[in-house]
C-alpha cells in the first residue's frame, strides 16, 4: 500500500532524525552506564542548550554550526557542576533520590525557561534552513544531512575518547567497579562529574545540529526525553553501539509510523516499543544483562 517513492524519502528522513536522536541518547547512555542513574533532566538540559544556540544566533549573530565550540564546553561545564555539587551531594547513595533530584532539576530548568522566555516557540532563520539536496530521487533538507554527518562524527569522537584515552579508561573502570577504581587511585567523584559533563556536552552538539531546522520552547525537551529513554533501553542501557543503532531504528519507526498512522498517532509506535522492550527484553538488543 505504500509506494517506494513515498517510503524511501520517509526512511531517509527517519535516518537523519535518528542520528540526532542517537547523539542525545549517547549522552544519556554514558551517564547511565557510568553512574547507573537515569537522568530525567536530560530533555530539560537539551532545551537549555537549544536556547543557548538560539540566543547566540539572535544576539551575537553566531551561526548555529559555529556555535559548536561554545556550546560543547558550556554544556560540559554545566554537567560537571551539576553532578559534582548537586546530584552527587543529594543522592546519599540511593537511586530513588537521584531519580527525584534529576526530576527536580528538570522542573526547575523547564519552568525557569518558561518564566524567562515565555512559552513562545522560537525558530531561527539561516541562509540554508530551506535548502534541500536530492538523493536518489528523494529530497532531504540540508540541515538534516549536516546533522546526520555531525552526529556520526560526534559519536565517533566519543567512542575514541572512551577507548583511546586515560580518561576513557578511568570512566570505564568506574562504570565496572567503582570501589576497585577508587582503590587504584582514580578520583571517582571527578570521573563521575566528567561523565555527566560529557553526557551533556553531547546535548550541546545536538542542539547546534537541531536548531537550524527545528524550534525551541520551554517544553521542547519533553518530546526528546522519552524518545532518548526508548533508544537507550532498546539499545541496552550503557551500550554505545546500541544507542547508535537504537537511534536509527527509532528515527525510522517514527517517520514511517507517521506516514501510516498520521502525525499524532505515529508517535505511539515509539512508546509501544519502549514498553515492550522494558517488559520483554530489559537488557536491550545489545546489552549483556539487565
Amino acid at each position, binding site marked *: 500500500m505504500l509506494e517506494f517513492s513515498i517510503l524511501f524519502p520517509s526512511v531517509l528522513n527517519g535516518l537523519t532524525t535518528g542520528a540526532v536522536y542517537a547523539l542525545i541518547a549517547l549522552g544519556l547512555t554514558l551517564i547511565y552506564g557510568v553512574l547507573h*542513574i*537515569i537522568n*530525567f533532566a536530560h530533555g530539560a538540559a537539551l532545551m537549555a542548550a537549544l536556547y543557548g544556540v538560539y540566543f547566540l544566533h539572535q544576539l551575537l549573530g553566531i551561526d548555529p554550526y559555529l556555535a559548536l565550540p561554545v556550546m560543547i564546553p558550556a554544556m560540559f561545564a554545566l554537567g560537571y557542576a551539576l553532578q559534582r555539587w*548537586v546530584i552527587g*551531594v*543529594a543522592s*546519599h*547513595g*540511593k*537511586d*530513588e*533520590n537521584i*531519580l*527525584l*533530584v534529576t*526530576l*527536580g*532539576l*528538570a*522542573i*526547575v530548568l*523547564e*519552568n*525557569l*525557561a*518558561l*518564566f524567562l522566555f*515565555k*512559552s513562545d516557540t522560537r525558530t531561527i532563520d539561516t541562509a540554508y534552513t530551506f535548502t534541500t539536496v536530492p538523493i536518489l530521487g528523494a529530497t532531504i533538507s540540508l540541515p538534516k544531512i549536516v546533522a546526520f554527518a555531525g552526529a556520526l562524527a560526534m559519536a565517533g569522537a566519543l567512542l575514541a575518547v572512551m577507548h583511546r584515552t586515560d580518561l576513557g579508561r578511568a570512566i570505564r573502570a568506574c562504570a565496572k567497579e567503582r570501589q576497585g577504581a577508587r582503590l587504584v587511585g582514580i578520583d571517582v567523584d571527578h570521573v563521575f562529574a566528567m561523565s555527566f559533563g560529557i553526557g551533556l556536552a553531547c546535548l550541546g552538539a545536538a542542539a547546534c545540529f537541531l536548531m537550524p531546522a527545528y524550534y525551541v520552547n*520551554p517544553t521542547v525537551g*519533553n518530546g526528546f526525553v*522519552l524518545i532518548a*529513554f*526508548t533508544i537507550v*533501553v532498546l539499545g541496552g542501557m550503557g551500550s554505545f553501539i546500541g544507542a547508535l543503532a537504537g537511534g536509527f531504528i527509532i528515527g525510522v519507526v517514527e517517520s514511517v509510523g507517521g506516514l501510516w498512522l*498520521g502525525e*499524532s*498517532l505515529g*508517535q*505511539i509506535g515509539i*512508546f*509501544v516499543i*519502549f*514498553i515492550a522492550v*522494558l*517488559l*520483554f527484553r*530489559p537488557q536491550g538488543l545489545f546489552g549483556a544483562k539487565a
Partner: protein
Amino acid sequence: MRGLIGIFAFAAAVAAAPFFVSSGYALNAIIMTLYAALLGQAWNILGGFGGQFSFGHAVFFGTGAYAMGVLQVKFGWNAWAAAPVAAACGAAVGAFIGGVSFRYGLRGSYFALVTLAFAEVFRILANTFEFTGAGVGLMIKLNESAANFQFATKAGYLYLILTLVVVAQLATWWLKHSRYGAWLQAVRDNEESAAALGVNAFRVKLAAIMISGALMAAGGVFYIQYLHYIDPHIAYGPGVSVEALLAPIVGGIGTVWGPVIGAVVLHVLGEGTRGLMGDAPGVNLVVYGLVLILMVMFLPRGIIGVFQTRAARNATPTARTGAGRA
C-alpha cells in the same frame, strides 16, 4: 485507635471551616490543598508504602477524569453512577500496568520509566480519538445540583473532596495497622526476604497499585466535576504526575500524614511566591522543583522525618537514627 481519632478530628475541623470562612478564595484554597493531599496520598500508597516510585501517576488521574466525562457526555449517565465506575477504571488501569510491570520484575528506575511511558501513550490516545474529544478536550454540562454531583456552593465541593481525603487517610491508616500493610512494607524494604517468608510480592504490589489507581482516579473525578473540563494535556501530562509525588516527598513518604502536611506546605509556598512574584507563569513550579531537590538533599524523610528523628533522639539520647547520610 489514636490514629483514627486523629483522622476524624481533622475531618471535623476541616468540615467546620465553611461555617467560619465565607470568602470564596479561602474556601478554594482549602479545596485545592485537600485535592493535592488526595493525589499525594494516592501516590504515597504505592510509592511510600510499596516502594514503587511512579513518575506517571497521571495515567490513573486522567483515566478517572475521562471516564467520568465520557460516561456523562457521550452516554448520558448520571454522575453519581459514573463516579464509582470511573474510580474502578483507575483500579483497572492499575491492574493492567501493575500486572505487566510487576510480572516482568520491573523495579526502581525502570518502573518509573514505564509508568511515564504509559501516561504518554494514554495522552496520545486521548489526543487522537474523537471519542474523548481529541485535542479539544471534553466539557461537561454545567448543571449545579446535588443530584447531578455538582454543587452550587464551594462548601459542597469542600465536603466532596474532604470525604475523598478521609477515605484515603483511612486507607493509609489501615496500611499501617493491617497484615496486608505489613506485607506491603516488607516487600518495599526487601522483596526477596519478604518472598522467602511466604509473602506473595506480586499480588501485594498489584493490590497496592490498584488502590492507588482508584484513589488517583477519584482525584480525576473530583477535578472534572469541580472545573467541568478536561483535555489530554491536563489529564495525562507530566504536571499531575509531579504534583502527586511532590506532597508526600515534602511531607514524608510512607507516613499517614505526610501527604497532607506536604500539600499544606506546598500550597502556602505556592501562594507565597505568587504574592512575591505575581502571577508570572512557571515561578511556582521553579520553587516546587527547588523544594524537591532541597528536600532530597537535606531531609530525605520529609518534614515528618524531622520530628520522628527528634522524638527518637529524646527517647534514647545515644541512638543515632535517621535522616543522616547513608
